[in-house]
């Protein structure tokens, strides 16, 4: 049964079956996919194992390689613990934003401005050194911005990895370009909008209401309209429709 015209009617079922038949897959694709996935897993596990979080009572002051330092005071300890938890959730692909405060008060004013600007780059998106420079009111200072980002004491949480060259090549990264690539890939694989299949409510990933739902009852959507078209409504707690 091939697709034939019958006046204005034609055999759509046949056409779909015919035209959507799977094409042969390139040899070696499976191996390549397995290796790629495993390499990324290994890299993220290494970040998790190697990096520690330091905090003050105001917020996280550093994410660095090395041994954990004893935090001074209960508030600092809480911030460090929270930062560590959120970082691990982020690396596991379960968190699309950091809620823990960041303390940049120990930094020079220019670097602070750069890092505060970097904090505004949304999860899963990227900007350029020059665009960031312009955004913080220092148009033309792309190189200085790059240097300030290169000395970011709070990597991952202050997302200096989301800043690329103007031609969208990677630029630099203090921990090596493979790690920058892996972080960008990680953010690409973490969705933003998820709905719960039993309540039919749509949330932003990281919403407390969503976290209470069973993990196998979550479905990703591309937009609020898409979710609405199959009967999901926006959450009143995290308000994805207001974002």
């Amino acid at each position, binding site marked *: 049964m*091939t*697709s*034939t*015209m019958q006046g*204005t009617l*034609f055999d*759509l079922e046949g*056409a*779909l*079956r*015919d*035209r*959507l*038949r*799977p*094409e042969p*897959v390139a040899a070696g*694709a*499976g*191996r*390549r*996919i*397995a290796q*790629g*996935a*495993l390499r*990324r*897993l290994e890299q*993220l596990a290494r970040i998790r194992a190697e990096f520690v979080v330091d905090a003050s009572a105001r917020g996280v002051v550093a994410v660095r390689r090395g041994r954990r330092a004893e935090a001074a005071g209960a508030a600092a300890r809480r911030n460090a613990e929270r930062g560590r938890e959120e970082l691990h959730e982020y690396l*596991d*692909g*379960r968190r699309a934003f950091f809620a823990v405060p960041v303390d940049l008060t120990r930094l020079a004013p220019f670097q602070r401005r750069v890092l505060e600007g970097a904090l505004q780059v949304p999860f*899963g*998106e990227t900007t350029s050194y020059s665009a960031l420079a312009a955004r913080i009111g220092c148009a033309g200072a792309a190189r200085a911005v790059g240097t300030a980002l290169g000395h970011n004491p709070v990597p991952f949480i202050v997302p200096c990895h989301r800043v690329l060259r103007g031609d969208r090549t990677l630029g630099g990264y203090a921990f090596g370009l493979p790690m920058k690539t892996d972080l960008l*890939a990680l953010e*690409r*694989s973490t*969705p*933003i*909008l998820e*709905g719960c*299949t039993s309540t039919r409510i749509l949330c932003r990933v990281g919403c407390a209401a969503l976290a209470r739902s069973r*993990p*196998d*009852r*979550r*479905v*990703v*959507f*591309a*937009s609020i309209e*898409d979710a609405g*078209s*199959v*009967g999901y409504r926006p959450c009143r707690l995290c308000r994805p429709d207001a974002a």
Partner: protein
Amino acid sequence: MVPRKDKGETDRDLMRRLQRSGDEQALTQLVLRHSGRMLAVAARLLGSRVDAEDAVQRTFFRLHTHAGDYRPEWMVTTWLYRILTNACIDELRRRRVRPEEPLPAAASTAGRAAAGPEARLDLERALAKVPNEARALLVLRYVEGLSYGELARVRGISVNTVKSQLARGKEILKAALTERPRAMRGERG
């Protein structure tokens, strides 16, 4: 489509190993068994082989990092389709956010002269006009032959919604394809 030759272990056995110890060999086995059909679905849904491979890699990456989310009452393939469609749908969201990056499947429009005799290409263009949810269902149904029940499970919707979405998708497809009758006479015609 993919033979089960490896030590007679079922997909569920492999998932159990993955859940228990993050077993990398188990992950590799699952990739080798299922990545072919996953690639076929992703390529049709995203209209690009490169993006498809990326989405499938993300699917297996997530299968590993979120191994604890799997429940044995799920057929592993249905679970994989759930994760894969999630990854593809999220990719479609990103394209929506950043429209300056061209949509491979939707890059050309009907107004332009039909490039070559490829009816397949016409269908891909028509598919790009179908809203995301209906498109995902159409692709899963016609590339992989999923049942209404499986489709409902994969997308977290009722069987009735599956049916109405498929019907709506087909209507849009039909309209797009009959605009230019030539479209349906493919390489076989």
